[in-house]
């Protein structure tokens, strides 16, 4: 022990020096003062601070924490006494906890090998059980009535940092055999609790069960976590002899003696991005084909449906939500729905989302009642107590809800999710409980058409068979159909046969464990390769065909990181240019939908569509890791939206043609905007039979368009849903180069009302 004391003293000195230097900024002095103020008795020291003070000290601290904890605590106590002499009572001391980067000493319960014994580690996991908090005697004081002497005795066990553990024998007689009376009031106790911590499921290796480690927490740390919490615990890993005497069977048990417990929130299961990752993310964002690349990386086992996959990417990224001062909440989450024939891989897409999205909860329309989706008040059958039960959408707050078989849901349940989808809250007013729960989630739903299979002779809305009020809450609605194209047939054939050939090559019993789902999780390496290795057999001859560079795909692991980074770190703002563009496009869409006879689009074009464009553009800007939404983002968003609304399968060629057509269209639009839709090939949807010029000969279409643009912008910028006509007049005349007369304004607005886009009542127009 004596030798040790020298070491201890040296360590204490070293540490006092560290505190004196105090990172050069008085950081720890402030921390100590805060600690005093908050009446706490534990100071958390950053490992990086210690490391930058002395690499050697940090290294020794991690390797041999037993030699340091006590001196550090002594040093801290001393400094604290200097800061505030009255704070610590006699015998009280300041405890030390550690945080910060632990390098390879940051482990999961699985990695805790015997080599870590005696060193300081940082372990992450889920608390699976907690014992009761029990007092543990540290010092007992005994009084002997015969001799009138007080004797005291200290107890140490595995958790104490100094000295050897003592026995737990309680003295009842002194050396001379006189009876002792325990003075309970003078004894010292400390709180003591044991936990079990289990490996987090994301880290568990394929085919292995999660490991568990036992943790002892004491003093102020007790009750700092409860079962189910994800925590990161810093502590000393120790081995203690088995309960049956160690000399007999030589088996040891291991425990972690904690000095710092920090709760990890939902975010904490987020991937850790290294600098290298960030660099590569930026590289990818710079590429021209970022969108295609990411889209292709989603669910590679499903052939085609690139647009839907792209939409899935945008959905996972989401827009930016806004909370206006007046309390209005504008959702940033994108909702989408897929309707299509059975067996077109809808469910598989949902499952792919489950695998990639950071927080995803899946449910089915049939299996969950409205309660299962939103929330419910239930009463306990035995006690009769009322409880609030959160449903899938509440649980998926800030995440994604996948709802399969949306059409199988009954009407009541559908009504109950109306609120959730737009307002993103669940309001409960029942049985004396009034609560509003957040449910800020994206919904991705899959449904079968109303007649089982998609009837091409009917309009999309008739096929879907869901009420418009609900449909309008979906930003995107995809009709997933079997594709009728020999070229596509060929590609599917290739895909199917290659998938099977690939797997059969692999053979062997263990083959099915090598699934991509697992291999990606296998590599704990932060700098894992980001592209899926090109496998000629798997990916076929696509490259040779030279049609599309489809062989490049991101690994799921990297894709997850990318999505997480882009979703949470980038909050793009709308630029003026983009806003103008959105307004123009919106007006175009409105026109198109108003003039199309049969309502060829899948979704009604409403003000919500406008929001949709903003959200999609924002998501696309996130995808490019830009902090501004540019015109290009709007274009990209519109392409997705167009695809969704007019359910077109656009092959590359068509796409290119379409782009050309769009260019043409734009040029033409200058001369004859009324005919623009005709120029487009989208006959089923944008066909304009009657050019509305007839009714409005006095106002030129350009002027109408300009008017609508201005109005649209205004509505967009201020998030209005109603506006008075005189205000509209003022507005357009302020913005427009040539003034509109009141009559002109009214006639344009009437036109808009006819097109069911606005409603005019008592001089107030409401945007529908």
């Amino acid at each position, binding site marked *: 022990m004596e030798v040790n004391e020298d070491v201890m003293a040296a360590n204490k000195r070293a540490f006092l020096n560290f505190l004196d230097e105090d990172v050069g900024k008085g950081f720890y002095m402030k921390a100590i003062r805060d600690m005093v103020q908050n009446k706490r008795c534990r100071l958390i020291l950053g490992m990086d601070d210690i490391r930058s003070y002395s690499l050697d000290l940090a290294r020794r601290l991690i390797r041999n924490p037993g030699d340091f904890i006590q001196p550090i605590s002594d040093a801290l106590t001393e400094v604290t006494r200097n800061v505030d002499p009255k704070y610590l009572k006699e015998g009280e001391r300041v405890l030390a906890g550690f945080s910060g980067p632990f390098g390879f000493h940051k482990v999961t319960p699985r990695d805790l090998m015997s080599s870590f014994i005696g060193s300081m580690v940082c372990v992450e996991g*889920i608390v699976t059980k907690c014992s009761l908090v029990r007092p543990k005697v540290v010092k007992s004081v005994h009084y002997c009535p015969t001799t009138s002497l007080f004797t005291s005795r200290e107890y140490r066990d595995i958790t104490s940092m100094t000295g050897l553990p003592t026995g737990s024998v309680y003295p009842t007689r002194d050396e001379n055999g006189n009876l002792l009376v325990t003075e309970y009031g003078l004894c010292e106790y400390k709180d003591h609790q044991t936990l079990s911590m289990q490996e987090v499921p994301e880290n568990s290796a394929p085919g292995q069960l999660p490991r568990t480690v036992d943790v002892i927490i004491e003093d102020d740390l007790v009750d700092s976590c409860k079962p189910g919490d994800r925590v990161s615990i810093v502590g000393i890993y120790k081995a203690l002899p088995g309960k049956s005497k160690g000399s007999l069977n030589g088996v040891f048990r291991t425990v972690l003696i904690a000095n710092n417990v920090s709760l990890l929130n939902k975010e904490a299961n987020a991937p850790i991005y290294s600098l290298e990752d960030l660099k590569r993310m930026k590289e990818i964002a710079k590429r021209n084909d970022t969108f295609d690349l990411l889209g292709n990386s989603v669910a590679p086992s499903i052939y085609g449906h690139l647009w839907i996959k792209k939409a899935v990417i945008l959905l996972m990224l989401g827009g930016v939500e806004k909370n206006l001062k007046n309390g209005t909440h504008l959702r940033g989450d994108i909702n989408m729905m897929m309707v299509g024939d059975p067996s077109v891989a809808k469910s598989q897409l949902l499952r792919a989302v489950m695998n990639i999205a950071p927080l995803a909860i899946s449910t089915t329309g049939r299996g969950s009642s409205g309660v299962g989706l939103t929330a419910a008040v239930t009463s306990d059958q035995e006690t009769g107590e009322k409880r609030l039960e959160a449903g899938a959408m509440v649980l998926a707050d800030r995440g994604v809800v996948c709802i399969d078989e949306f059409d199988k849901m009954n009407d009541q349940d559908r009504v109950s999710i109306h609120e959730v989808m737009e307002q993103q809250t669940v309001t409960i007013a029942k049985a004396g409980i009034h609560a509003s729960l957040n449910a800020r989630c994206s919904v991705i739903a899959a449904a079968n058409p109303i007649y089982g299979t998609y009837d091409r002779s009917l309009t999309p809305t008739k096929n879907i068979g869901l009420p418009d009020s609900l449909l309008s809450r979906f930003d995107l609605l995809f009709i997933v159909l079997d594709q009728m194209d020999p070229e596509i047939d060929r590609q599917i054939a290739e895909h199917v046969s290659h998938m099977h050939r690939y797997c059969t090559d692999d053979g062997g019993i263990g083959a099915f464990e090598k699934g991509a789902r697992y291999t990606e999780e296998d590599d704990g390496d932060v700098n894992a390769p980001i592209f899926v290795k090109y496998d000629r057999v798997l990916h076929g001859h696509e490259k040779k065909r030279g049609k599309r560079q489809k062989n490049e795909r991101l690994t799921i692991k990297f894709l997850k990181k990318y999505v997480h980074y882009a979703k949470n770190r980038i909050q793009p703002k709308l630029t003026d240019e983009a806003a103008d563009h959105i307004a123009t496009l919106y007006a175009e869409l409105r026109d198109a939908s108003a003039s199309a006879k049969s309502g060829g689009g899948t979704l009604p074009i409403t003000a919500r569509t406008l929001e949709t464009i903003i959200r999609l553009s924002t998501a696309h800007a996130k995808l490019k890791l830009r902090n501004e939404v540019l015109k290009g983002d709007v274009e990209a968003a519109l392409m997705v939206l167009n695809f969704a609304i007019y359910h077109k399968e656009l092959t590359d060629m068509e796409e290119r043609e379409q782009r050309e057509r769009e260019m043409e269209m734009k040029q033409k639009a200058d001369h004859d905007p009324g005919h623009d839709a005709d120029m487009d090939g989208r006959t089923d949807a944008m066909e304009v039979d009657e050019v509305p010029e007839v009714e409005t000969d006095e106002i030129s279409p350009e002027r109408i368009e300009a008017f609508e643009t201005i109005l649209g912008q205004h509505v967009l910028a201020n998030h209005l849903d109603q506006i008075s006509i005189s205000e509209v007049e003022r507005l357009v005349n302020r913005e427009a180069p040539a003034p509109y007369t009141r009559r002109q304004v009214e006639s344009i607005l009437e036109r808009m009302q006819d097109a069911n886009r606005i409603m005019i009542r008592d001089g107030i127009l409401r945007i529908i």
Partner: protein
Amino acid sequence: MVGLPYDCVANPHGAVRLTFEKAVAASQDADSVAALCGKDWGAVDLFRMFLFEEDGLSKVPILNKSSLPWIKPNTLVRFRGMVQDMLGNELYIGAFKDGSTWRTNKFTDVACRPIPSSCQSFLWERRLFVCVPVPGQNSWILDAAPQVVLNSYDKDDASQHGEKRMRDASHDAMELNVLDEMDSSCSKKQREDEHIFQSCQSLVGEAVLQGGMLENRNNLGESSFSCLVKAYDLPESHLKLNDVFEFIGIYTFDPELVHMSSTDDSSFDLMEDVSNQLPPNKVPRLHCLVSRKLAVQDFLSGSLALQPLPNVMSDIRESLLVHLSALLGNDTVAAQFLLLHLLSRVRHTMDVIAVGKLSLNLTGFNRESASVFGNQLNDIIMELFPFSKVIPLSVEYLNNAVLQPRKDNQSGRLVTGVLQLAEGTHLTIDETHLQAGVLNSVGVENARLLKNLMEWQTVQYDFEYYKIEMAADIQMLIFSEGKSNILPADMILPFRPESFVRVKKASTEELQAWRWYLATVKSLHYSNGPQVQQMLEDEIVAAMREDRSLGYKDLERVLIMAQLLSASLGERSVSLEQWQKAKELEKLRKERLR
């Protein structure tokens, strides 16, 4: 102990010690011992040589419920079972210096001599697994296992009874119900002789008598026989949950330890050692020396050594098909589909899709036909596969059964569920018992589990605070009246028996040939050359042109069928002929569906 200073079977510790001393003898310093950590010093090699080269394997007794009372502690045994739970690592004093000599504690629970209180020692690690007999294992694999002559006792029949008891254990209560029903059917007389259920039943009485004696030492239920395997120096990925392994190692039993565990102080009430719940007098300890993963082939009796020649294969295939169609009342189409189903397995998982599975739903059953044909089919499946299970699906069953394996965080154990099955288990679900009724939350969850297993070949394990999906490879066969909506199978085929003939029980030779055939075809690696690939693509495109309603899933199914058809003939790549045949079969199936 002639020639060698130890006997590998009777005194394995001697061999361990000897090799250890030899390894240490080279130098006495601590470094050489430290270097032995996590490594084998020659002991395992010695045993390997003894077992596999000197043909010692047959001398090693098999550890099971019945042999347990007779096997002496500290002898070499082997155990075949499924890894049911993983208890994590255990640290032990691997080597210590007793005076001037190094001693080791490896492969033992108790130090050979007391460890001095302060001495140089090293902590080593070993992994603990709880292994159980493979759920649903069929009796023939026990019969096929080579009999071992035990020196300590020569009650051969006793061990046989024990095995029969094991077989008994493998039938759960549900199967016994089936048995009752079957008995009441007219078929009783004819089956009498070799019928497994019958023999089983006749043995129940005896087994109980035998059991009474055993129960003194092992008062656990039949099915709960398990074994705590302590494995050394294995790479993490070597053993996976639900793997079927053969462990050869040292069986230890120490009466002192039993005593110790019962008198625990409760200073760390929470941190109770998990293995304490597995008292050594009930759960034997096995210190594993050699372990190997078992494939179906390992369960086949060695006498049959057939070459996978095309003509041999097609002969066996033919005889199996004839037998199957006879069992199915001469429904040859159903027999073909059944054969394909029996040959299928999950070959690979591509992100979420399990490629190669081919579940079959035979519709058109009613209660009577299900009990007649269904039982016949179940019987043959039990004879053909090493592991199989039957689930009679009913509302009551769904509401009450524990299908999902669940981690009990309080005890730290994984509580098994019906769906914790070994790879390659055949699962028959009889839906004909299903009546209209209300499912409770357990029932909904169970139905979902079954559906997920069917569609994605994964089973969700409940870990209280989260769920983990484990990949599975279970062949699923469903009998139902109409198309099963709860369990959407890959292939739905209305079953049309023409006649009901009592089928003669297949001979042992036939059964052996069929088992060998199924195992061989299943393990066949196929690969399609580029030409075949091109041909298939053309064919798929042509098929799609022909029938616009063909979806992605249909194409996949036909492709799998074609592949299995080719494989069933021992071919390694799909031929045009088999593709056509698969299409033909699919057409027949579609016609029936109409």
